[in-house]
């Protein structure tokens, strides 16, 4: 075994200090050193996307990144999505649309969609399909995954509009009050 290095990582908001070989990929470090086994490895050459995590909010392949490169970055994994036993809206959409069967690729698709929707909340179905083509799934035929991501996006849009309307109404009311 070769030289090890002390690194610090921030994963799901938690800081970690590790002494590891620099050749360890972020994926192996998450899984083996931090015990965050939700991130899966399906090909180790960046095609299947089962290891997709968020690096500073953007989806990235954890198999194509050494853990040492991830220092000072904000890493998020599938373990961060749910609030205790309460699934996130994206996770619920996946379940409702039967967008997972064996579940092996699922964490990668969830993180892919999570990062994408944060940047492109108004994405069209075609854009979502193109996004979903980033990762491989062998069970579902993809359609339910596209459906789930689209459904989640629409619900978020609706709730944003709802929120905006409420905020607008609030502002109007307070405006009236001020004018009176």
């Amino acid at each position, binding site marked *: 075994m070769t030289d090890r290095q002390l690194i610090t990582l921030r994963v799901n908001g938690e800081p970690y200090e590790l002494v590891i070989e620099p050749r360890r990929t972020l994926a192996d470090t998450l899984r083996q050193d931090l015990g965050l086994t939700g991130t899966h490895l399906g090909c*180790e050459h960046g095609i299947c996307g089962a290891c997709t995590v968020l*690096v500073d909010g953007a989806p990235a392949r954890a198999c*194509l990144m050494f853990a040492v490169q991830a220092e000072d970055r904000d890493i998020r994994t599938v373990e961060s999505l749910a609030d205790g036993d309460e699934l996130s809206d994206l996770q619920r959409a996946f379940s409702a649309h039967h967008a997972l069967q064996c579940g092996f690729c699922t964490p990668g698709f969830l993180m892919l969609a999570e990062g994408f929707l944060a940047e492109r909340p108004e994405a069209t179905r075609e854009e979502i399909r193109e996004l979903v083509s980033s990762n491989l799934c062998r069970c579902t035929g993809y359609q339910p995954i596209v459906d789930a991501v689209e459904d989640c996006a629409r619900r978020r849009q609706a709730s944003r509009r709802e929120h905006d309307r409420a905020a607008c109404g609030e502002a109007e009311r307070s405006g009236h009050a001020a004018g009176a």
Partner: protein
Amino acid sequence: MKPAAFTYHRARDVAGAIRLLAELGDEAKIIAGGQSLVAMMNYRLARPAHLVDIGRIGGLDHLRGDGSTLRIGALTTHHAVEVATDAWLGRGFTLLRDAMAWVGHLPIRTRGTVGGSLAHADATAEWCLLAVLLDAEIVASGPRGTRTIAAGDFFHGFYTTALAADEMITEVVFPRPAPHSALLEFAERRGDFAIVSAAVDLDVDEHRAGRAVRGGRVALGGVAPVPVRVPEAEAVLAEGGQAGPDLFRRCAAAAAAAIDPPGDGNGSADYRRALTQTLIEDACAKAVSR
């Protein structure tokens, strides 16, 4: 598929990176986004003894336009270009932005860098094709100072470039493309390396009725060890003619006849010629339509 051991070095600045490269010699390799390199290391097809991580060097992730040129920092990610606004890119550089959709998939584009792509020099890489098409200049720093290499001189062969082992790309400078330009690719699957990629940059006289082509540039990827310009096709454009299917077909045919593409598991030489014909025609049509 775990990489062989290496010693990791983190460069703080360009000078430091160059010093490390000079010290470590051939045993060292630069890692930026690592989207090609790490995959090759996982297969142990690449096994550098030293990795020099330039990812933390500040000031190399810029997109700076002055109207006639766009300077792109080596550490700028494909995704940063993909989401850049017109204000950032400067007018007329949408070709570059649109081309990003062809670079792998989103999770690759968020990490992969412009400089890394040029240095890796894959025959079908979009940045390499764009650089050759637009006569971009690649700025490299080394112990002997900074030099500028014309794209036409930069790519030497399969994964080999004019860069010395102790040099690194810091920036690439793109002249502004013509208003009518386009890049198209064909691969069996979305996001795959192209079997053939084609990019055109047409000089169109907007004022004449029926829009006449006065000249243009044509570049191809996947038909030679490096991306190539196709003078025979450009000659057809230079002869001029009405911007339309006939001219584009002749231009594409000249390209298909001129190239001597390889045949492999992804497509025979004949198929690559056929794709060349199609992609150049379609790219020309797309270019004039914008």
